[in-house]
């Protein structure tokens, strides 16, 4: 996982995104580890074009797809789909157009905090947003992290820590 580099690449390309999932948990203070980076992205034509162009040099391919499957991660493909799980030279990257329990990019961004990561101001899904999305997703692996997220929320609230 090349977190710093991936954030810089997307930011430099002007991509509108919110960091979600396990990386958002870690950035908010959870001890959770993850091997992929998940983002919610804005589904405007311009943003989808920027996202496709930003990732093109890093050979995005559908993760787990059979070898030889023809796929090009371009603006047209992004517009035709919604959620993409990709293998890239930057590591495994997930791009979601919507997040369960929250909705589309605008709602996800509204539920995010701004964090300074290596000098870049990034939108990161808040602990409360993570609790909502994990509760709505409802898979065992989502429910498993809820006690930690609720404790983290309480610890932050009672101490004023970020």
């Amino acid at each position, binding site marked *: 996982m090349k*977190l710093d580099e991936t954030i810089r690449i997307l930011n430099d390309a002007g991509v509108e995104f919110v960091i979600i999932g396990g990386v958002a948990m870690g950035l908010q203070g*959870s*001890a959770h580890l993850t091997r992929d980076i998940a983002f919610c992205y804005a589904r405007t034509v311009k943003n989808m074009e920027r996202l496709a162009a930003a990732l093109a040099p890093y050979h995005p391919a559908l993760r787990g797809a059979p070898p030889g499957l023809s796929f090009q991660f371009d603006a047209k493909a992004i517009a035709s789909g919604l959620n993409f799980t990709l293998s890239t030279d930057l*590591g495994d990257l997930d791009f979601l157009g919507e997040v369960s329990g929250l909705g589309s990019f605008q709602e996800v961004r509204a539920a995010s905090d701004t964090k300074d*990561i290596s000098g870049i101001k990034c939108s990161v899904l808040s602990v409360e947003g993570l609790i909502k999305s994990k509760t709505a997703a409802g898979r065992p692996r989502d429910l498993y992290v809820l006690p930690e997220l609720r*404790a983290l*929320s309480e*610890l932050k609230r009672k101490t004023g820590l970020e």
Partner: protein
Amino acid sequence: MTKVQETIALDLVNNPPRGSEMAKAKEFCVDLTLLLSALRRTPTERARSLSDGARVFETAKKTQLVEK
């Protein structure tokens, strides 16, 4: 983290109030001290920890300890 915040946080981690979310998490075997350690770090430092931690998965994948 200020000294006051550190004091409050340490007390909450070591003695979470009965019925609190922190107490429930502790019963669920969440190591609350790890939350405190993470909150002492900046987001940039947390990002680096995440990247370092992901290497565990990469190593496991290379040695086929996790499904491909």
